[in-house]
Structures are given as structure tokens and as C-alpha cells.
């Protein structure tokens, strides 16, 4: 009886994180085709973000091939990405790197999320592959001495910090108390810790952060604990599910800060869809907006890129997950062209010395593989759309405060 129950429990847990394993592929790289491996979350809890990332990679393939392909030495090569589903499981993302390696795929584009990227980076290093990371922002990935992982995006430490800076600079009268609700994954915790330090340095009173399980749709306990402190601002370092829950359950429980700010949720279209009017005024941090400065030969400026994306996806507006994915692909393409080779070590060395402007802003890596040359932006949901409000020079509209009006 106990064994039977144990088996049922095990299967129930398996269902809780289930997804397909993805199909096996065994093709070798054909002559004239530059094949890149990418493990993405097509199923499981991060499927939404995984699909947004895939769209960015697909735009890159489309544009590069539309302009004749990648120039590698004397040869033009068609760009192709081989996708595998990591079912939103980090360890599987790591295993898929080995599978790609067995297939001879040495050039890799990153999976979605810091957990999967950290697992993939370890395999990539061991296998002598090279990976450009599009969404793994946790600084912890870059403290392990890896030499073969490069992130085009700004690190986790800047996500919530950028919103603290924006509030400090743009909101008058200056709010006094900030409460933090953070998911308990590495990325969110890193973002929270950095923002708490910055907020304290700027003179804000910071309520001790409340941590909630990553991916939860119930943050009521954290809100009930925060409510008596009556904070001016609640900053959520959270993904979509938790981000939506923070705003929704605050209304339910009568928690009324003057404004909400959340890291990755607000710029995604689902945030406004799920919250409709309650999303109005929420601040969010973004890796990219259509006001981002810089151009490149493949995608032009940020607004050119937005048009290209809309053209490929039935007029849909791009948000930063797509842009950072395309930028990662762009960095790899630029490195292959500059190296004049698909040899992973040569591509790695070229990536390490890359210093290019792009629609995504500057792409230049430090010795840890992080791109610290670009800044994060802050958006605010205004009239149902994310609008760039900070930094001032890239703002589309002034920040409205109180944000929950």
C-alpha cells in the first residue's frame, strides 16, 4: 500500500512538471549551412517566455538569410537554428548541450532563464562549445570563471535597481518607504539584493524583502505581512505569474501603495492582458525599448527592428524578450563573420573582443562574459501599453505618479 501510494505521488509530481522531451535529431551540419543549437522552454512553466525568445531567434534567422546569409571567409552560409525543448527544466537544458555536442553543434544560443542558462553554461564550458546568452541575467552565472558564455543583456543586479533609480530621479515628492516582494529563484534574489542596497544608499526606508515561491499565483501571505507597514512603493522582483498576483491580490487585500514596480513582467503583453486596467501605471524594467540607441547592418535601428518583427508576426509589437534573443543571435553572427570561421575557439576569441553597436545598444563583453556597456530602461504601463520613461534621454513620455491612480 505504501509503495503504491509512493508511486502515485511520484507520478503526480511528474505531472506537476511534465512536458515533452522534444524530438531527437541526428543531422550533421551540411556544407553551406551554419547550424546553431538552442534549447528552449517550449513546454512547462516557462513556455511563454521560451516562445517569446524563440520568436527573437526566428527573426534573426529570417533577416540574416533574407540578406544572403552569413559571410564565413569566402563562403556564404545559410543560418539555421536547431531547437530542442528543455521542458522548462534546467538540468535538461544542460543535457541538451551534450546532445548538441554529440551532433557536432558547437555554436549555441542560450535557453530562457537564468537557471537553464547556468546549467547550459557548465556543459558548454566542458564540451568546448561557445554560447551567447540571451536571457540568463543572474550574475552568479558569471562568477564561475567560464570562458565560453557571453551574455548580451544587462545583468540581474540592474533590473530592480534601475526602477529604484527612476523613482528616485523622477518622482516628486520622493517616496519614503519601499517594500520588496521577490521570487526565490537566483535571478530574482540577485536583483532584489542589489536594489535593496541601492535603495538604502539613496535614503529610502526599506521593508525587509518577502520571498515567495518562484511561479506561484498566491502571494497573499507576503502582502498580509507587508500591509501594516503601508509602503509607498512595492517592488516585485518576479516573473509573470507572481507579478500579476502581486497587483491582483494587493487590490483584493486592500494593500494600496502609491505605485507598483516589477522587474520582468510588465513589458510582456500578457501582463496587460491578464490585469487589464489594474496594470495601468505599473513600472517595469526592460533590456530594450524602441528608443534604444544604436544601429547595425542587419537590423538597422531599434525602431527598424520593431518594424521587422511586426512584419514577421502579423503586426504584433515586439517586447524585450524577442529583442534580446535577436541580439544574442546577432552577436554570434557578427563573431562568426569577424572570425571568418565556425571554429568554436576562434568564435569565442572574437566574441571576447567584440565591440559593436547594434539595435540592442552596445555589445561588448567584460572578462567574465557580461555586457556592462548597455543600460537598462524603465517602462510604465500607460493607456494599456508599455511606454519608456527612464532614462530621460530615451523616454517616450513622462512618468506618471501616483502610479496606481
Amino acid at each position, binding site marked *: 500500500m505504501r509503495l503504491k501510494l509512493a508511486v*502515485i505521488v511520484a507520478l503526480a509530481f511528474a*505531472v506537476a512538471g511534465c512536458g515533452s522531451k522534444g524530438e531527437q535529431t541526428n543531422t550533421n551540419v551540411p556544407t553551406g549551412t551554419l547550424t546553431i543549437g538552442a534549447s528552449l522552454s517550449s*513546454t*512547462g512553466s516557462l513556455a511563454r517566455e521560451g516562445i517569446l525568445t524563440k520568436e527573437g531567434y526566428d527573426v534573426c534567422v529570417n533577416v540574416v538569410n533574407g540578406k544572403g546569409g552569413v559571410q564565413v571567409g569566402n563562403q556564404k552560409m545559410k543560418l539555421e537554428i536547431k531547437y530542442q525543448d528543455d521542458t522548462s527544466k534546467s538540468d535538461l537544458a544542460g543535457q541538451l548541450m551534450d546532445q548538441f555536442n554529440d551532433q557536432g553543434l558547437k555554436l549555441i544560443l542560450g535557453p530562457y532563464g537564468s537557471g537553464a542558462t547556468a546549467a547550459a553554461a557548465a556543459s558548454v564550458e566542458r564540451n568546448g562549445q561557445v554560447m551567447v546568452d540571451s536571457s540568463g541575467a543572474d550574475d552568479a552565472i558569471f562568477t564561475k570563471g567560464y570562458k565560453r558564455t557571453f551574455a548580451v543583456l544587462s545583468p540581474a543586479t540592474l533590473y530592480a535597481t534601475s526602477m529604484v533609480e527612476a523613482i528616485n530621479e523622477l518622482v516628486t515628492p520622493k517616496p519614503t518607504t519601499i517594500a520588496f516582494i521577490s521570487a526565490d529563484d537566483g535571478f530574482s534574489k540577485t536583483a532584489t539584493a542589489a536594489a535593496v542596497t541601492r535603495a538604502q544608499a539613496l535614503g529610502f526606508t526599506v521593508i525587509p524583502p518577502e520571498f515567495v515561491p518562484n511561479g506561484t499565483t*498566491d502571494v*497573499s501571505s507576503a502582502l498580509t505581512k507587508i500591509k501594516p507597514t503601508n509602503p509607498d512603493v512595492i517592488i516585485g522582483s518576479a516573473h509573470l*505569474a507572481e507579478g500579476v498576483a502581486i497587483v491582483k491580490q494587493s487590490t483584493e*487585500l*486592500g494593500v494600496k501603495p502609491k505605485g507598483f514596480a516589477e522587474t520582468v513582467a510588465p513589458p510582456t503583453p500578457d501582463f496587460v492582458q*491578464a490585469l487589464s486596467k489594474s496594470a495601468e501605471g505599473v513600472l517595469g524594467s526592460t533590456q530594450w525599448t524602441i528608443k534604444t540607441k544604436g544601429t547595425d547592418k542587419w537590423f538597422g535601428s531599434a525602431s527598424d527592428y520593431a518594424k521587422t518583427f511586426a512584419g514577421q508576426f502579423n503586426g504584433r509589437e515586439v517586447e524585450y524578450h524577442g529583442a534580446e534573443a535577436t541580439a544574442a543571435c546577432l552577436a554570434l553572427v557578427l563573431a562568426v563573420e569577424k572570425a571568418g570561421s565556425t571554429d568554436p575557439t576562434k568564435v569565442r576569441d572574437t566574441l571576447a573582443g567584440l565591440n559593436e553597436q547594434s539595435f540592442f545598444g552596445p555589445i561588448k563583453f567584460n572578462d567574465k562574459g557580461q555586457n556592462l556597456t548597455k543600460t537598462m530602461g524603465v517602462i510604465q504601463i500607460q493607456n494599456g501599453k508599455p511606454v519608456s520613461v527612464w532614462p530621460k534621454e530615451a523616454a517616450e513620455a513622462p512618468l506618471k505618479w501616483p502610479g496606481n491612480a
Partner: protein
Amino acid sequence: MARQRVTGSQVAQVTIYGLLQGGLLALVAVGFSLVWGVMNVVNLAHGAFVITGAYIAWEINRAVGLDPFLAMVPTAIVLFVLGYVIQRGLVNLVVNAPIFITLLLTFGLNLLLVNGMILRYKANYQSIPTSYAARSLVLPGDVHVPYGRLIAAVIAIGLTLALAFAVRRTRLGLSILATGMDRGAARLMGIRAAHVYAVTFGLAAAMAGMAGAAVGTVSTFSPADAGRLTLFSFVAAVLGGLGNMYGALYGGLLLGLVEAWGGQLLDTTLVNVVAFTVVVVVLVVRPQGLAGRPFYASRVEV
């Protein structure tokens, strides 16, 4: 900064919110518990039925603007038909087989439904908008009772009472009960077991669909949530016990309370640890669950 002390109004708020959250969990779990109790089938696709219901209510709301709680009725009808057909045409084929086979079958069914929804809806997070669900009745002490969750909890209690009444007082209900107790004897009495099973599965799917409409209104949903909902249903069913129509309700309410208070008194990230510790303790002290009957628990056969 030191942790603040829990005030009187916080005690009331946490308890009320926990009970409401528990009511929602009970609504999700009641169908799961029914199928397990009557048919000895642990339906691992139950969470996928809940999400299917959420999408149907969402589609109806988008198309004709019908309130999601009213949209529960057409959603329940669609899910009843779906459940009946799946049981009659699929699960009935293996209902006599060892429990592992039904587990595998429903596991596969879950994969099909979840991935089908990801294909159709691109894994988007959705929520069914209403003007009132997030608003609250404010009690003295600034204790908030959100309308959406209150309605969901009232429906959960109403459905459980209706189910308990139907099972004891109607001919169909008695056949469901009889088939659950002894299929062979029920057949000898002229009960068409295949039909009764299909009706039971259909009823469970219909209730899952109604739960989906409620979940979609008070919270967000995406296909990826199916597994989590199945797990909640499983825990609520085990806590409450099988063979008693009130089992899922008790289990859900206890789970809601434990999560709310666990999150309040300890670190919020520990809510699942606290919830599963309570499950283990209940199983050790009372293996048949809070309201279950030992006969049904011991019937899990391999």
C-alpha cells in the same frame, strides 16, 4: 528590522483568506476525489480539464461578454460531454487493468491536452476580467473579503452539498455509490457500470471546468498550471479522504488554511513544505484522510 507582531486583524485576514483560497482548492479537487473514490482512477489529467474549463469560460467571455461565473454553466456542459466521451471511449478500455495503466493513460491524456493548449494559445498567461472579482467586502479591522474568491468558495460548498445530496437521494447517485462500492454486485443488480462510470467522469470533468472558470477569474492561468492543479487536487483528496463527498472540501479548506498560516508565521517560500508536512502527519495519524473511509483507501490496487 525586526519582524512585526501579528495583529488581531491580521489573524482574521489570514484565516478568512486561507479559507477562501481553500474553497477554491476544494472546487478544483472535488471532481478528482469523486473519480478516485468511485472508479479507483487517479486522473492525472484533472488539472488539464480545469485549464480547459478556464479557456472555455475565457473564450465565452471574450465572444459574448458572459460573466465567468455564469459561463460556468456552458463550460460544465462542454466538459461533461468531453469527460463522458473520454471515459466511455478511452478510460473504460483499461478500467479493469492495474492502476499503473490508468495512471499512464491519464498521464498521456494530460500531455496531449496541455501541449494541445500550448499550440492553440501559445502558453499565454490569461485572466478573465470582471469589474468585481478583485474588489472586496471590507469588514471591521480593515479585513478584506474579495468577492471573486467568496463566490468561488460558496460555489464549492454548494456543489459539494449538491453532490452529497445527489449521491444519497437520487437513483443515478445511488448507482454511482453502488458501483463504487462493488462493481460486480452493482452489475448483478442491473446497473450499467460503463454508463455510470462515464457519467461520473463527465460530472468530475464538468466540476473541473467550473473550477477552471473560477480560477481564471480570481487568478491567472496558462497550460503550464495543469500539473500544479492536479497536485493540489491530489493533496486535497488525500487530506480529505476518499469515499466521502465532503472529503475534498475538508481537504481543500485545510490546505488553504495551512498555506495561509504557514506563509504568515514562517518564510513565505516554505508554504509548500508546511502543506506537505501536514499531509504526511495526517496520513500517519489517520491514513484514510480526515473524512475518508478505510475501505476506499485500502482499495488502491496494483
